[in-house]
Every structure is written in structure tokens, then in C-alpha cells.
């Protein structure tokens, strides 16, 4: 990988850490009292979660009618949020698995939080297909189980059934991957924590890990196997999500470009979300030495690449519609760009394609504030991308008599806010109680880029930090 060559000269971890220092510094966040900033963040997130719970409770008690949907637009915020969160959930596994397979050692600083983000994002995503049901208490019917109805199985031809399997698999594999990566660190925590209660807890979850190298060897094999499985899984999951749309007959949905387009979009939005979180985390938790501008820089380049792919997809859609000579297809795309939801379309184009182009400038890539702002904008843009795909394709489809407009209700907004609340609540709890950075991996990577392994590295790298192509 070219990336490797570019990154090799600069140390991955600044400050010339020694392994013991790594342990104490990373565990510091879990062992000292929570900072007021953490509490503030937690309360905000929990408040949002409470709003979401209230919205969903109201939804369950009253009906899906409390959302702004109608006979023509059967999905809007619900599936937008679902695809959005699933997309977010993709960067975690991507960073962990794909970069692991490509031996991108810079991943060690961010993979843990990225994987946690995946888990929480998939939880957030998984909620929506359930709550959007008319009769959510029957959601389990989507799985085939022996029953007294004949037995009546499920429709394996339905992309929603595929979805159910894909998301379940993705969640389980991601969870396993995350947990597996955390076992050595949990053992470290177990041996490090002064609290008896916590020791017992960590002891339970660390499964009796003792750092035996024979286990380590198998562990590395399993980890690599999982990474190898997770990589096509990431691609398949978002491909399947895109098939929810691509296999339909609705113009604007029925497009073969969707799988690569969605996967690229997912990685794009996921990476942006990782950036947002990591930038906050390194500041709040004083992990600047572990998450260095180099990491951010590398992720920015990834953003630039995926933004390009997404932009290309936007253009391609218009091109296919143009040469299809299909009146319905052409209309849908013109309606996106010029119709009543044009504002959403242009937010999407600006935020996802135009603004990320700023990342061509190295100075901006190195400015955490700028990257933070751009990453947030990308998240907004990617949310709108899904909204536009779903709503504008539905609200004006084949028969003009069916055309309607969609307007969200407060309950829907509350549910969206609630999903962010859930995500950040989980993430903040994770930061508080688990090592946000994979200690065992960082310890293995601290020598990387240093002139002589094992000895303290100079403060500044003697080599040029980066070679421009």
C-alpha cells in the first residue's frame, strides 16, 4: 500500500511512550473520577436519549401515524436514520478489519473507538427497522422459526429479510471482533484496577486471559480470520442495504449503481463520524499523543477518496437517467435537483462533494478545528443523501395522482435526536469504563517509526514527515 510508504517515517505514537506508560495513561481515564465535561456531555446525551425513548413510547402506544408518512411516502426519517447509522457503523469495521489486513498500523490508535462506534451505530440502526413497523411487537416474525402455521416460513426473496440477516450478522461479528480485541486489555484492567468490584467484573469478562504466548498466537490467527471475514461483510451489509432500494421498481431506487455507491457513502460517513468522535476524544481525554495529526491526516485522505467516489456516483446517476430515455427516471433526478426537495439535494451535494475538496490542502488537514467542522458537515450531508434518495424517489413516482409531500412530525425528530442520544450515551459510557485505545496493540506499535526500537525516540522525527506524491 502506498499509504504505508507515506506514513512510515513518522512515529505513530508521539511522546516516546514506554509500555507501562501506555497502560497508565490510557487507563487513567477509566480510573480517575469523571470530569465535569464528561458529565455535561453525558447529561446532554442522556437527555436526548430520554427524548427518543419518550418519542418511541408514544409511537408504540399510538401508531406509526404519529410520523409524517402517508400513502405514497411509506418510509422517510425511519429508514433514512437506519441507513445513516448503518453507514456510520461501517467505518469501525473498515478501520479495524480492512486496515488490519493491509497492515496499516496507524489504525491501532483509533480502531477500538471505531469498533465501539460500529457497535453503537448498529444498535441505533437496528432500532429503526423495528420501530418503523406497524406492529413492532411482531418483529420476530421476520426470522424463520418452526411454527404451527403450516409451518409458514419467511420470504427469502425480500431484501428486508436479507437486511435482517445482514444486520444481525454484522452486529454479532462486529461485537465479537470488538470484544475479542478487548480481551487482553480487559486482562490488563483486571490486573491494574485497585477496585475489588471492578476487578471481579473485568476478571469475568477477560475470560482468564493471562498473556500466554500460545494463546496470543491463536488469538492473532483468529483476529486475522475475523478481519478477513468482516471485510467482505462490511461490503455485503451495505450492499444489501442498498438492495432494499435497488431491487424495487421505483425510479430513483431501481439503480444498479447503488451497491458501490452505498458502500463508498457508508465508509465516507463512517470515517467522518470517527473523525468527529476522535477529535473530541483526544482533546477531552488528553490522548493527543496517541491520536496524532498523522492519524487525522490519514483519515482525511480517506475522506477525500470516498467523497470523490460519492460525487462520481451523483454524477453517474444523472448520466444514466439521461441516456436511459426513460421519462420516469429522468424526472426523478430532475425533481431531486430542481423539485420541492431541491434544498436537501443541494445540501447533500455541497456537504458531501464540494466541502470535502478543501481537504486537498494540507494545512486544513492538519487543523483539527477545520477537520472537525468538515466531518460534521459530511455527516449532515450524508444524512441528507439518504433522505433525498428515499423521500424524493417516493414522493413523486409513476402516477402523478399519487404525488404528495412529506413533512416530518415532532415525534420523528424526537426519534432521530434519541438515536443520537443513545449513540453518545453508549459512547461516553464506553470512554468512561473501557480502554478507548487498544493498549495491547499500541504497545506493539510504539516502536513503529522510531529510529531504534526499545530506546526513547527523539521528540521530533528526523525524517521528513511526509513525502508528497
Amino acid at each position, binding site marked *: 500500500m502506498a499509504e504505508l510508504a507515506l506514513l512510515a517515517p513518522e512515529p505513530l505514537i508521539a511522546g516516546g511512550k514506554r509500555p507501562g506508560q501506555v497502560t497508565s495513561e490510557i487507563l487513567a481515564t477509566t480510573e480517575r473520577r469523571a470530569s465535569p465535561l464528561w458529565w455535561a456531555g453525558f447529561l446532554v446525551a442522556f437527555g436526548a436519549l430520554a427524548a427518543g425513548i419518550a418519542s418511541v413510547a408514544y409511537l408504540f402506544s399510538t401508531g406509526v401515524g404519529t410520523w409524517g408518512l402517508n400513502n405514497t411516502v411509506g418510509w422517510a426519517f425511519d429508514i433514512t436514520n437506519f441507513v445513516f447509522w448503518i453507514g456510520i457503523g461501517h467505518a469501525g469495521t473498515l478501520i479495524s478489519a480492512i486496515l488490519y489486513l493491509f497492515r496499516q498500523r496507524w489504525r491501532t490508535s483509533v480502531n477500538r473507538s471505531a469498533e465501539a462506534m460500529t457497535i453503537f451505530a448498529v444498535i441505533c440502526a437496528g432500532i429503526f427497522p423495528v420501530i418503523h413497523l406497524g406492529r413492532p411487537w411482531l418483529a420476530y416474525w421476520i426470522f424463520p422459526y418452526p*411454527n*404451527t*402455521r*403450516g*409451518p*409458514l416460513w419467511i420470504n427469502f426473496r425480500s431484501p428486508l429479510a436479507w437486511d435482517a440477516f445482514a444486520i444481525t450478522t454484522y452486529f454479532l461479528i462486529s461485537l465479537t471482533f470488538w470484544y475479542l480485541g478487548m480481551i487482553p486489555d480487559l486482562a490488563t484492567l483486571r490486573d491494574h484496577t485497585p477496585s475489588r468490584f471492578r476487578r471481579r467484573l473485568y476478571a469475568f469478562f477477560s475470560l482468564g486471559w493471562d498473556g500466554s504466548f500460545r494463546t496470543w498466537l491463536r488469538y492473532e490467527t483468529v483476529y486475522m480470520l475475523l478481519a478477513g471475514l468482516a471485510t467482505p461483510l462490511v461490503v455485503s451489509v451495505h450492499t444489501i442495504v442498498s438492495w432494499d432500494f435497488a431491487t424495487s421498481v421505483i425510479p430513483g431506487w431501481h439503480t444498479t449503481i447503488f451497491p458501490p455507491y452505498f458502500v463508498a457513502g457508508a465508509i465516507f460517513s463512517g470515517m467522518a463520524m470517527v473523525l468527529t468522535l476522535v477529535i473530541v476524544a483526544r482533546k477531552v481525554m488528553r490522548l493527543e499523543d496517541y491520536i496524532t495529526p498523522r492519524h487525522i491526516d490519514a483519515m482525511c485522505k480517506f475522506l477525500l477518496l470516498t467523497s470523490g467516489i460519492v460525487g462520481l456516483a451523483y454524477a453517474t446517476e444523472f448520466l444514466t437517467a439521461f441516456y436511459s430515455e426513460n421519462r420516469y427516471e429522468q424526472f426523478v433526478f430532475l425533481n431531486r435537483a430542481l423539485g420541492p426537495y431541491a434544498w436537501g439535494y443541494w445540501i447533500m451535494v455541497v456537504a458531501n462533494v464540494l466541502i470535502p475538496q478543501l481537504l486537498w490542502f494540507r494545512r486544513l488537514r492538519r487543523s483539527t478545528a477545520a477537520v472537525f467542522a468538515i466531518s460534521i458537515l459530511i455527516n449532515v450531508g450524508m444524512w441528507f443523501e439518504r433522505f433525498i434518495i428515499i423521500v424524493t424517489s417516493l414522493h413523486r413516482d409513476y402516477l402523478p395522482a399519487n404525488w404528495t409531500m412529506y413533512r416530518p412530525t415532532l415525534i420523528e425528530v424526537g426519534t432521530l435526536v434519541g438515536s443520537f442520544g443513545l449513540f453518545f450515551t453508549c459512547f461516553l459510557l464506553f470512554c468512561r469504563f473501557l480502554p478507548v485505545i487498544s493498549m495491547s496493540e499500541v504497545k506493539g506499535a510504539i516502536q513503529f517509526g522510531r529510529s531504534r526500537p526499545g530506546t526513547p525516540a527523539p521528540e521530533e522525527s528526523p525524517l521528513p514527515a511526509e513525502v508528497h506524491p
Partner: protein
Amino acid sequence: MASRLTAILLALASAYSLLLLRPKIGSFRLPGNQQGYEPVQPIAYSHRLHAGELQIPCLYCHFSAERSRHAGIPAASICMNCHRFVTAPLGALRAEDALASKEKRAPRLIVSPELQKLYDALALNEKREPDPSRRPRPIAWVRVYRLPDFVYFDHRAHVNAGVACQQCHGPVETMERVRQVSDLSMGWCVNCHRQANQAGINGRQVHASTDCAACHF
């Protein structure tokens, strides 16, 4: 050593509790499954006696099974077709006669307490003549076989296709009190339809649809 003992004790305890719970577990049914339901009816009408011993055809009373969705519970007037004349078993009548002559009174016309309920429902007096001072009151039987409201079962289709009543209702002619024999689950319906399509009914080719809309609309 102590832990091993505890484990053995625990295993024994759980085995014992399983043994205790066995009837409960054996009778476990999914919700909605009323198989084995055998409610007490307002009149202790015996299908064993009428359909079994006396061999009255099912369709004599449940005649609408041929022409309607519902098999129907016969009207009291159908009962009266016979019970206008038959008021009790011969033995009971003789016993009453004997008792009456012993007590030196006229024998009562209505001996059976169950038939008394029928005559009461029709507001008949002791001579089984309409009693204008009383109001007829219909007999509220307890429904045994019940399907959810989203299922449309049609007796007419089955009876005319030659499906025996006992196929679903079991040996009613042997039951004192009617019991729900089949579990009335969808799988039970569908399997019968499948078998009928393959094997026919009484050697006759039939088309028993397994379309959803055969029952759900």
C-alpha cells in the same frame, strides 16, 4: 469436595422439580391453542347418547353446515321435534311412576332436570304447553370450537366435499361433553388440505386450496 456435593444436590433438586412440573410441561400449549377445551354446558346434553347411541345424524341438528359457513347450534325448536314426545329415559319414567304411586300423587310429566331447562327456555309449563306468563329465554351454550376473527372457515365447503365431521371434531359420538379435539392451528388446516389434494376425500379428487385467500380475507 463440598462443591461436588452441592452440585449433586442441585442436580437432584432440579430433577425432582422437573418431575413435579411434568404434567404442567406436558400440557403446555402455545397461546391461542385451546386443544382439549371441554367447558361445562348449560344443559348436560350428551352427544354420546344422541349421536352415538341413538345414531341421529350430525346434520339433522347441525343442518346449516351444508348450506352456510356456520354449522350452527340447533334451535330449541329442533330439540322439540323429539323432546315434545321424549321427556326422559324409560327407566326414569317408570321410576317416577312408581314413586308417584307410592307418594299417592300424579306422576310428573317432566322428569329429567336437564330437559326441564329446555322447556324453561321455551317458557313451557309443566304440560309442555306455552306459558304466556313467562318469557322465553334462549340457551346460552358455551362455544367450544372458535377461530380467530381473521380466519374464515366455511362448513359448507367441507361438508359438501365429503369431509366427515369427525375429521375435525373427533369422535363426538363418544363424548358426553364436547371437547375440542384438534388444535385448530393453521398448520393443522393446511396439512389436511395438502393431504386432501394428494389423496382426495373418499377416493374423490378434490381441490382444497392452500391459497392464503382461501381463509384470510
